[in-house]
């Protein structure tokens, strides 16, 4: 993998892409980007949402919508010595899939659900290699074996929904490497997957790259993820390349403040600063001002009186089976924990572990199947719904997806006023309006936000709106269900800081649910690890991360990207 090799497989020069929004407005998504992908090497394109990284990759593949995407004629994309932009579209299409191939973020939506995986992989072979049905099938079994799918001869006839998310992504990879491409573009291939699966996929890609001596252009928002696999890193922001260089150099001596910000905004695993550094500090050039305050100490204190005591909480879902039968699915099994005032309980687990169901059941958005939850000594699960109505305001929830959790037809003002009206907080609308503005200021929203609709805000701001909506009710317990998972790294830090400040000011107790182990470590006093609906381990967060007892916890911790750092 010598980078001295001047022979570049892909050369992108001065790429400019504009999108036509309507008759008058245009948006310049990529502003003069140049980069190279050498032969037999992995290049990582890193950036947050809106950085133009995916658009650049789609331009290379020629997959941008023709109607509204304009690539400047001066832009040059040359692949293997041939200029792609001026190539006739028929030739270019033949190149895609054979020499150039791509994997997308969502394996479930990239595979056709009504065709078997074998057929879909075979289609590539039949199309580009002109193989017969028999030969294609034999090759497909080989490919499935190569990408690590167990029993490939049987799985070839499976439909995508019969495979797990990780296996689906493996099928996508098998499809992409079917014709032994020279360049594989992987667009956020692991973002939709669990951490342990993510690690496996990364390792698979690394192994395939070396075995087939191909080039990989790896697109991701997570800088830590590429430390172990990329030879070169390109950092993009707002359609411009901020920094590019050798992986080692970018990680160890980042030149651009934005690269530093990306590296430092993530909660570290070895320290717990009072506040996380945010991107603006970095861009201003202040040297991590947030670390002025002392580090936080975390953990439950033994003699604290708990605010919330949960005993043997369980929740089952039933699905019909046969004519009269019912099939029980235990989403949560016998979960018990306590939560003192002003503390945070982190719940960690992969998808399907039941962590979200715990949160929803506590708020009675699902009715519990069994168990008790004592809030200030009263069992909130056994109450009548009329009685529980008063307790609703004491327990609130911030959802994962800020794009889905706000009613798109309500203005921010309406969103914030509604809960106060329902619970008769404030004497009249005038007073409630004043309260609205108070909370908006508290979570860092501008005054003019009051009359705007949610879609006019960025993800981070929307999450602030969702938090403000909860705060209007003066809750005592706030369930944060993957509340920062959908946000960009730099915005994530801001929202985490906000949550931290609110806890300091109002003594809120958090139940912090996340699949992201470093975020949970930063936020939580006590961490509960869940798997298949059951608690596998619970301990104070420092103890758990330093000395995990259960093998599953150990696997999870080992899968955190960038844990080993750059070697």
């Amino acid at each position, binding site marked *: 993998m010598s980078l001295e090799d001047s022979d570049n497989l892909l050369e992108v020069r001065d790429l400019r892409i504009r999108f036509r929004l309507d008759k008058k407005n245009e948006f310049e998504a990529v502003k003069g980007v140049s980069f190279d992908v050498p032969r037999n090497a992995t290049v990582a394109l890193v950036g947050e949402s809106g950085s133009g990284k995916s658009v650049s990759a789609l331009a290379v593949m020629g997959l941008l919508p023709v109607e509204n995407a304009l690539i400047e004629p001066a832009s040059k994309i040359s692949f293997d010595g041939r200029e792609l932009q001026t190539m006739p579209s028929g030739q270019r299409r033949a190149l895609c899939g054979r020499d150039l191939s791509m994997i997308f973020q969502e394996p479930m939506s990239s595979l056709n659900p009504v065709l078997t995986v074998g057929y879909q992989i075979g289609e590539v072979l039949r199309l580009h290699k002109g193989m017969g049905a028999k030969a294609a099938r034999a090759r497909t079994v080989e490919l499935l074996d190569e990408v690590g799918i167990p029993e490939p001869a049987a799985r070839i006839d499976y439909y995508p929904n019969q495979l797990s998310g990780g296996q689906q992504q493996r099928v996508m990879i098998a499809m992409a490497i079917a014709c032994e491409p020279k360049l594989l573009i992987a667009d956020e291939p692991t973002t939709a997957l669990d951490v342990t699966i993510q690690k496996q996929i990364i390792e698979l890609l690394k192994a395939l790259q070396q075995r087939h001596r191909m080039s990989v252009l790896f697109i991701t928002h997570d800088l830590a993820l590429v430390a172990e696999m990329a030879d070169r890193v390109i950092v993009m922001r707002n359609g411009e390349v901020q920094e590019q260089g050798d992986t080692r150099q970018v990680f160890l001596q980042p030149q651009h403040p934005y690269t530093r910000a990306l590296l430092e905004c993530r909660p570290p695993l070895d320290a717990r600063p009072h506040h996380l550094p945010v991107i603006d500090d970095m861009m201003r050039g202040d040297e991590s001002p947030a670390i002025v305050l002392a580090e936080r100490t975390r953990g439950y204190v033994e003699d604290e009186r708990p605010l919330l005591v949960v005993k043997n909480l369980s929740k089952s879902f039933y699905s019909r089976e046969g004519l009269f039968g019912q099939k029980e699915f235990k989403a949560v099994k016998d979960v018990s924990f306590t939560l003192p005032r002003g503390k945070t309980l982190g719940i960690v687990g992969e998808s399907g572990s039941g962590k979200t169901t715990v949160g*929803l059941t506590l*708020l009675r*958005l699902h009715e519990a199947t069994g168990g008790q939850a004592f809030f200030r000594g009263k069992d909130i699960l056994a109450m009548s719904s009329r009685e529980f*109505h008063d307790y*609703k*305001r004491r327990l*609130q*929830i911030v*959802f*994962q*997806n800020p794009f*889905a*959790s*706000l*009613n*798109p*037809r309500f*203005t921010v*003002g309406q969103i914030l006023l*509604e*809960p106060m009206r*329902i*619970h008769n907080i404030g004497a009249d609308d005038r007073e409630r*309006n004043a309260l609205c*503005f108070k909370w908006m200021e508290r979570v860092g929203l501008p*005054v*003019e936000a*009051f*009359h705007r*609709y949610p*879609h006019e805000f960025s993800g981070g701001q929307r999450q602030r709106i*969702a938090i403000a*909506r*909860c705060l209007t*009710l003066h809750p005592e317990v706030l369930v944060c269900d993957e509340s920062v998972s959908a946000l960009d790294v730099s915005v994530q830090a801001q929202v985490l800081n906000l949550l931290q400040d609110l806890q300091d000011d109002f003594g809120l107790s958090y139940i912090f649910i996340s699949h992201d182990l470093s975020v949970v470590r930063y936020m939580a006093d006590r961490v509960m690890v869940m798997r298949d609906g059951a608690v596998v381990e619970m301990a104070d967060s420092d103890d758990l991360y330093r000395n995990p007892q259960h093998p599953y916890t150990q696997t999870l911790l080992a899968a955190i990207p960038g844990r080993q750092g750059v070697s």
Partner: protein
Amino acid sequence: MFASSSHLSPGLWTLAWRRLRADRVAMAALAVLLLFAAMLAASMSGWLANDWADEIGVHYAPPSFIGAQADAAHRTAEPAATEVPPENPLDPLKDVIRELRAEMDGASVAAAAGGEAGAEDSYGIADPLEKELAEIRGMPSGAATHVTSEKKTTLPFGADKWGHDVIKKTIKGAETSIVVGLVAALVATFLGTLFGALAGYFGGRTDDFFNWFYSIFTSIPYLLLILAVAAVLQQKGVTTIILILGLTGWTGVFRLVRAEYMKHKEREYVLAAGAIGGSHLGRMFIHIFPNISHVALVQMSILAVGFIKSEVILSFLGFGVPVGVVSWGSMLNEAQNELILGKWWQLTAATGAMAVLVTAFSLFTDALRDALDPKLK
């Protein structure tokens, strides 16, 4: 700017109106709709077309831009001249009738001459109502003579069989058709949305109940259903048509709205509304409904168009508007026979008016849907 105007909030409708105004097609459609609305108001209050039933033209008077028919003068002169209806050359009994008539004439002449039993007919029975009948027979002929002298040979857009002005008839017909179409569409959309919302939101048994109801309802042949509702309501009139169409037309809306509610009730914003303590009704109609209202709106515009047409079928089947009330449907019904005679104007007037209204209505609801969606700017 926002801080100073914080007490008055530009609501959904203000913003929607702003967006509508930017849409030229929508504004044109709105202008057409307003024109129809004005026409409707004028005709209902009696300002316009109140005298549509006056027989002001000769029958089948052509539109003015074509010019009068050659035989029009002959026809106007004709009717009052004889009391005896003109002989039908195709009637197989015409010879018998002619004989009878000659006999009767002879008998009455004889009776008048004889003078002894003046009120005796050919069977030798005296008619006690002889005088009254003679009076009645005398009246219409006199009246007809009076009106005939004023009948026009051409009208701006022609006349129908009875000499009604087609333009006035179309305006008056719009009253019935638009009211039937819109109100029935409203009723059907309301029922469909309500049932769909309940079924989709609550699911489980409620959903089963509405689905059973829906399945049974749709398994009955449509016309039979219409006849059944008509038989229950027992009377003819605009209200009956509205009820027939409204009570049978909700099924399509129900399916679509139910599907939308099933999709939306799982959304996080609805869960969030539940978490802050919003009631079921509040979640159904304050939170979810505005987000699916486009489905109901589009369905309503499609239904309105369909119902205006259905009114034609009902009129044809005899369940339509009562005699003496005009609608586009009854006009189209008459046009079937006229078209064979080459009298196309009534058909053109009714379908033209219908097409313009329906197109404008569809374009407007489409634009309204877009304008009400805050995500589309």
